[in-house]
C-alpha cells in the first residue's frame, strides 16, 4: 500500500516534470536574440522541477488528515445559494461600525493609501453597477467600461466646453450613462447570452475608439484634463484657478494637497453607501426580483406577465448609471482622462470583481473590489512579476471559491400575523407550517 502510493506519487511527479519541461523549454529555456537564441535551459529545468515539486507537495498534503479535511471542505462549499432563516442577527451594529470606520479613514491614512481607497471605492461602485446587469439580471456585459468612460468624459469635456463642475457632472452623469445604456440596450436585448457579451464588448470598444480617434473633440490619445473639485465654491488647489477661494485660505489653515483627497474620498464613500443601500433594497423589491427571475428563466417570466424587454432595459440603465457615477469620481481623482483607462481589460477586471464576489452578492462585490484593487498595489514589490502573480492569484481564487467569496443569501419571508395559519389547506397534515 505504502510503496504503491509512493510509486503513483513518483509517476505523477515524473509526468508533471516532463510536461512542464516541454512547456517551459522553448519559452524559458531558449531566449530569442534576433534570429538566433540564447540557451537558458537550466532555467527551464529548474522551473519544471519546481512545478513537479509543487505538485508532489500538494498530493502529499492531500494525503494527510488535515489536508483531506481542507480538500473536503473546499469541495463541499459547492452549493451556492442559501435561504436565510429569518433569525439572523441584524447586522446594523457591524454596519454602523464599518460606516464610522470608513468615515474616519482619512484621519489615519496617508495620501497614497487614500488614493488606493478611492480607487477601491470606485471599483466598488463599478462592481455594484455591473452586478445589477450580470449578477442580478444575468446579462453578460463585457463593455461596461463604456459607461465608466461616459461618466469620466462627461466631466472632462463638460468642463471644457460647457463649464460643468464636479457637482453638476455628478448629477448629470447617471442620467447620461443611463441614456447610453438604453441606446445600447435596444439592439442588445434581442440577443441571447454570449452574443450579448460580444455586442457589449463591441460597444465598449466603439466608445473607446471614438474617444481615441475624435481628436478635435475629445483630445484623442492626449486626453483631456479635468478641473479639480470644488466645495461650495471653495477650491482645493494652492491658488484659486476657477474663480473661487482656496479652501485653506478661507479657513485660514495651511495648504495641503491632502484636502482634495479627503474631499473626494468622503463624497465617494457616502455615494457608495447610498448605492449599496439602494442595491440591497432592490434585491427585495419587485424589480430586483424580476431581474433575478429573468436570469433564472426568461420563458417562465414571460408566462408570469413580466415584460422581459422592459425589465432588462431597466437593469441595463441602472447598471450604466452607476458606472457613469464611478466615471465622474475617476475623472476628478485623476485630474486627467484619456482612452487608455477604458480598455477592454478594465471591463474584464470589473467582471472579475462581480464573479469573484459571488454573482449577485453585494457584500461579495465590495470584498472583491477591495481585493482586486488593493492586491495589485500590494504586489508592487514583485515589480515585473506583479502581473504574473496577479494572474496566478486570479486563477487560484477562482478555483478556491468558484462561486465567489461570499455566498448569496436569499431573504426569508413570513406571512403577517393576520393570515397566519389561515391558508392551511384541508388536506395538509401539518397546519403549524410556518417556521
Amino acid at each position: 500500500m505504502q510503496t504503491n502510493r509512493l510509486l503513483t506519487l513518483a509517476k505523477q511527479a515524473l509526468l508533471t516534470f516532463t510536461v512542464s519541461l516541454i512547456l517551459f523549454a522553448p519559452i524559458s529555456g531558449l531566449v530569442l536574440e534576433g534570429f538566433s537564441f540564447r540557451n537558458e535551459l537550466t532555467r527551464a529545468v529548474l522551473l519544471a522541477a519546481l512545478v513537479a515539486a509543487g505538485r508532489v507537495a500538494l498530493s502529499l498534503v492531500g494525503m494527510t488528515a488535515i489536508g483531506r479535511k481542507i480538500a473536503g471542505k473546499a469541495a463541499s462549499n459547492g452549493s451556492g445559494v442559501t435561504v436565510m432563516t429569518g433569525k439572523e442577527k441584524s447586522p446594523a451594529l457591524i454596519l454602523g461600525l464599518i460606516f464610522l470606520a470608513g468615515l474616519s479613514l482619512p484621519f489615519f491614512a496617508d495620501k497614497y493609501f487614500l488614493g488606493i481607497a478611492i480607487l477601491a471605492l470606485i471599483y466598488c461602485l463599478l462592481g455594484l453597477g455591473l452586478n445589477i446587469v450580470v449578477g442580478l439580471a444575468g446579462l453578460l456585459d463585457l463593455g461596461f467600461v463604456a459607461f465608466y468612460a461616459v461618466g469620466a468624459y462627461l466631466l472632462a469635456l463638460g468642463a471644457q466646453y460647457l463649464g460643468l463642475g464636479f457637482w453638476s457632472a455628478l448629477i448629470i452623469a447617471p442620467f447620461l450613462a443611463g441614456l447610453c445604456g438604453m441606446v445600447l440596450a435596444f439592439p442588445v436585448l434581442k440577443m441571447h447570452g454570449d452574443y450579448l457579451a460580444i455586442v457589449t464588448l463591441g460597444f465598449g470598444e466603439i466608445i473607446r475608439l471614438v474617444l481615441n480617434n475624435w481628436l478635435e473633440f475629445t483630445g484623442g490619445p492626449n486626453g483631456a484634463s479635468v478641473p479639480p473639485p470644488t466645495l461650495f465654491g471653495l477650491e482645493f488647489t494652492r491658488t484659486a484657478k476657477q474663480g473661487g477661494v482656496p479652501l485653506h485660505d478661507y479657513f485660514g489653515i495651511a495648504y495641503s494637497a491632502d484636502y482634495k483627497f479627503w474631499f473626494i474620498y468622503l463624497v465617494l464613500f457616502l455615494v457608495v453607501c447610498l448605492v449599496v443601500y439602494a442595491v440591497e433594497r432592490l434585491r427585495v423589491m419587485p424589480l430586483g426580483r424580476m431581474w433575478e427571475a429573468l436570469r433564472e428563466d426568461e420563458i417562465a417570466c414571460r408566462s408570469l406577465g413580466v415584460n422581459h424587454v422592459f425589465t432588462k432595459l431597466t437593469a441595463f440603465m441602472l447598471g450604466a448609471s452607476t458606472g457613469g457615477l464611478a466615471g465622474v469620481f475617476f475623472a476628478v481623482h485623476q485630474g486627467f482622462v484619456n482612452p487608455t483607462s477604458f480598455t477592454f481589460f478594465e471591463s474584464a477586471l470589473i467582471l472579475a470583481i462581480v464573479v469573484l464576489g459571488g454573482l449577485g452578492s453585494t457584500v461579495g462585490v465590495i470584498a472583491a473590489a477591495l481585493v482586486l484593487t488593493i492586491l495589485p498595489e500590494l504586489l508592487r514589490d514583485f515589480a515585473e512579476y506583479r502581473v504574473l502573480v496577479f494572474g496566478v492569484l486570479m486563477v487560484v481564487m477562482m478555483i478556491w471559491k468558484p462561486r465567489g467569496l461570499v455566498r448569496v443569501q436569499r431573504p426569508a419571508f413570513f406571512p403577517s400575523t393576520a393570515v397566519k395559519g389561515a391558508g392551511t389547506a384541508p388536506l395538509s397534515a401539518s397546519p403549524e407550517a410556518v417556521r
Partner: protein
Amino acid sequence: MNTPLLDVRNVTMRFGGIVANRNVSFSVERGGVTALIGPNGAGKTTMFNCITGFYRASEGQILLDGPNGPQDIGTLITKPITGGSHLVTRAGIARTFQNIRLFKEMSVVENLLVAQHLVTANNLVSGVLRTPAFRRAEREAVDRAYHWLGEMNLTDDANRLAGELPYGRQRRLEIARAMCTGPKLICLDEPAAGLNPSETRELSEVIQRLCKEHGQTVLVIEHDMGLVMRISDHVVVLDHGEVISDGTPEHVGNDPAVIAAYLGVSEEEVEK
C-alpha cells in the same frame, strides 16, 4: 348561454413542414375544468403555447373573453414594441409547463412574489425609500403567496430554494405561482406527471377546489385518465393535430376513435 371564456377558432400551427395543429376549434367554459388529451405529439402543448401567446398561431383566432368583449390573443402578442406573451398573462391566462420552469435559485416565496409583480407597487423610488404604501403592498403580496402555498400544501417549504424541492412539490409550486398572477384561466400542462397515484389524487382535489371555491377556470393537459375522468367537465381530444372528439368525459371515454387512438382497451378502468 353566455360566451365561453376562451374560444379557439380554426387554429392551425405549422413548424416548417410539420403541422402540429390543424384547424382546431374548441371552447372553454367559465368555472369548469376542460381537459385536453391526446397521444404524444398530438399537438396539445403546441395548442397551449398558442393559447398562452408563446407561439403565434399560423392561422385562426384565439379569443379570450374580457370586460370589453372577446380579445384576440394573436393581436396582443404582435402589438409593436410593447407586445409579447406577457400581455396574454396580463389579460388573464396563466400557465404551467410540461418541463418544470421554476426560478430554481430563488426561494419558494420569491417565486410567488415574482408572479405578483403587477400588483405590488413597482416603483423604484417608493421601493428604495420603503414608503408605507410599498410596504403594505409587499405585505399583501407575501400573504397572498402564503395563501396559495397553503392551498398547495407547501407552507413548510416556503423559505427553501425552489430547485431543492422534490419534483412533485415543484409541480404544485408551479401551479401556486401561476395562481398568484390572479388568472381568469389557468392552463396546466401535465400537472400530474411524476406524481404517484395518491399524490395525483391530492392534486385532483386541489384542482377541484380551485374550481369550486375560487370559481377558477382550468384548462388541463393530462395523460392520467383517472384524473381526467374525475375532474373534468369537458374533454377535447386531439390526434395528429386535429380534434377527434369533444364532449363530456363519458362521451369521450366511450368514443371508439379515442379508444383506438389514445386509450387502448383499459384494463385499469375495467378493474376499478
